């Protein structure tokens, strides 16, 4: 009898291990992918048409598995295929996980800081993956073999920062360019600042640069000095932090810019650009906040020699622009600003259509990472952070929460307000990270660690998950949950994926959990 039991257990074990082995030793498939980069589509709507999660079944979501990332501030947005999830894991590299079990299919070692969404493309029949390292540039690798195909940098700027996700369109890679000078300015002996933000285009097959469009055309010149010897320069700044949106009918790219770093200020900062995707030529520019000059030095003291005088409110367009069409057929560009304002512009002329303010704004929003849209409902969803940072002056009453506005008019349809779980700074309860929409739901994560699903039409809360937990991860480590921020949730079929933990800003709680939720009984 015992030997029969032993045999049964042995066979079951062998079967189980063979299944697990099969999951992770079979090559990753890339025939299906659920998003065209950060914006889910080329227009950056962050609307996932291939999700099975709805208002009716959202309550049946449960945690399927957790993967422990190597960084307490994960900052990559996953690529999901039919059987694999690929995500950047800081200096660990690019990790391909089995979609069902979370086991590692392969790891592309990378010493750096993968900070973007992972993109997929086909070049001459070869599947490639593309990502941005925040400081080292853009990498294209072979999806099957994990070999680097090309690595590109923007050599037009001295200290470019690749914080935004590139966009792949018709054999080109469009790369948003910010600058490290915004933080280097903390050093009082640094002669701030000479850089411009910009948008660059590269050939997808070769990584060869096609064009570069700086947001400030004029060369920075010396404007003064401090400490007798340290030279000051301007104009500078107007970085591009986020992935562009693409209008395929017109062949235009749209993107927002940040503030100037120094005086004199330019009419291209805190602005929205429309440029020709073939040439990089500017079609139109719409500035929303003039004379906004600011660096991280201002966080230390407004008397810091590298803090612009007068100092601006630092109200970048950090979130990507979104292209929408109203029910009556009007093409608009939507842009969320850190001032807590959402702007709608005519897509052809750049003329303002409406502006709606939803909070007090601040140096991390207002609107920080991104909007989402449900065009069939005619609504744009707006996460408001309104977080106070490091004692920095934030005049006005904060109004953090999730809002829905009508795309055509900017009228507010609903608002969801939440309470704080504790009085500490890490319990700031606003929404800084990007959000995602699908079917009749909106998914959002809060800075105090709640992942929530709302009814898209009414704002009624349908589901909530408190991620301030420790998780047993499938890779044998402990994973900690923390603040939800940055790129936000991804939806694919019956899955909801999100990274938890983010401690760049203020006192937010770090964490290293990649959480994968699944609908129970998805077929019901």
């Amino acid at each position, binding site marked *: 009898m015992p030997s029969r039991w032993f045999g049964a257990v042995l066979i079951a074990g062998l079967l189980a291990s063979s299944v697990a082995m099969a999951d992770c030793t079979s090559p990753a498939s890339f025939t299906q992918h659920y998003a065209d980069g950060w914006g889910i589509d080329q227009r950056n709507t962050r609307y996932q048409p291939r999700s099975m999660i709805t208002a009716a079944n959202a309550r049946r979501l449960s945690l399927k598995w957790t993967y422990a990332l190597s960084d307490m501030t994960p900052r990559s947005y996953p690529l999901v295929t039919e059987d694999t999830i690929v995500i950047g894991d800081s200096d660990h590299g690019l990790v391909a996980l089995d979609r069902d079990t979370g086991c590692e299919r392969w790891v592309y070692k990378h010493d750096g800081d993968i900070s973007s969404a992972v993109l997929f493309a086909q070049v001459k029949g070869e599947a490639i993956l593309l990502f941005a390292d925040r400081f080292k540039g853009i990498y294209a690798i072979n999806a099957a073999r994990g070999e680097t195909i090309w690595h590109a940098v923007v050599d037009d700027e*001295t*200290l470019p920062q690749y914080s935004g996700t590139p966009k792949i369109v018709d054999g080109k890679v469009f790369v948003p360019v910010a600058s*490290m*000078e915004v933080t*280097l300015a903390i*050093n009082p*002996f*640094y*002669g701030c*600042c*000479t*850089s411009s933000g910009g948008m660059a285009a590269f050939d997808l097959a070769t990584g060869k640069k096609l064009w570069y469009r700086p947001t400030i055309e004029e060369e920075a010149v010396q404007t003064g000095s401090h*400490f007798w*010897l*340290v*030279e000051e320069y301007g104009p500078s700044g107007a970085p591009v932090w986020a992935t562009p949106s693409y209008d395929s009918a017109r062949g235009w790219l749209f993107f927002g810019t940040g503030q100037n770093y120094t005086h004199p200020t330019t009419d291209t900062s805190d602005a929205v650009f429309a440029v020709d995707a073939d040439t990089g030529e500017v079609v139109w520019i719409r500035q929303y906040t003039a004379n906004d000059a600011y660096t991280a030095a201002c966080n230390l003291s407004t008397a810091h020699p590298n803090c612009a005088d007068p100092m601006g409110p630092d109200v970048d367009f950090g979130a990507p622009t979104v292209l929408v069409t109203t029910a009556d057929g009007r093409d608009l560009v939507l842009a969320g600003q850190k001032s807590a304002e959402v702007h709608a512009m005519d897509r052809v002329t750049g003329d303002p259509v409406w502006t709606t303010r939803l909070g007090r704004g601040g140096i991390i929003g207002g609107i920080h990472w991104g909007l989402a849209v449900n065009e069939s409902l005619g609504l744009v969803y707006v996460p408001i952070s309104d977080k106070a940072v490091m004692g920095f002056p934030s005049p006005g009453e904060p109004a953090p929460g999730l809002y829905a506005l009508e795309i055509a008019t900017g009228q507010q349809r609903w608002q969801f307000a939440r309470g704080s779980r504790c009085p500490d700074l890490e319990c700031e309860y606003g929404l800084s990270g990007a959000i995602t929409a699908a079917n009749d739901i909106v998914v959002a994560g809060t800075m105090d660690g709640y992942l929530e699903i709302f009814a898209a039409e009414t704002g009624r809360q349908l589901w909530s998950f408190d991620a301030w937990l420790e998780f047993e991860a499938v890779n044998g480590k402990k994973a900690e949950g923390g603040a939800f921020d940055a790129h936000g949730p991804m939806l694919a079929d019956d899955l909801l994926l999100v990274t938890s933990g983010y401690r760049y800003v203020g006192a937010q709680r770090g964490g290293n959990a990649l959480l994968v939720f699944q609908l129970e009984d998805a077929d019901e």
Partner: protein
Amino acid sequence: MNEPKPSGCFLASRWCRLFATAIDAVLVPGLTLFLVMLTGVVEHAEDFVDRWWVFHVLLLGIASYLLLNGYLLWHRGQTLGKALLGIAVVRAPAYLTGLPDGTFETVPVAFWKLLCIRALFFPLLFVGIVPYFTILPLLDQLFIFGRQRRCLHDWISGTLVVRVS
């Protein structure tokens, strides 16, 4: 065999040594920052394209230390802070086991030891350049609470700090 000779020298007090270190910890980085500003090694975007700026600042820090303290260390076993507080570094007798007040000879310390061993423990070196090792200067300083008031770097370099005024 050397006999201990009364010399009238006494161990520097712990407070005295702390103040001397504090003075050095202000003067050396102060001069370093001035040199950083003068040379402009971290003034331009080009300086940050690679990590060489760290090495440049380190070199300027060493230069500042030598400019301020080199002559005094060479001739009197003193840094500027120690000179202002009237204390100096001397060689510890080999047979020293207990409290040495007034019972030892003040022998100058080899210059290389002052630079290559003692100066390596200069706290700001670790705070500024090797931040992960900030525990080392802390540990070094805690040894001062021993009976012979010798920091870890004193033990390693075989030195004492005495009053000389």
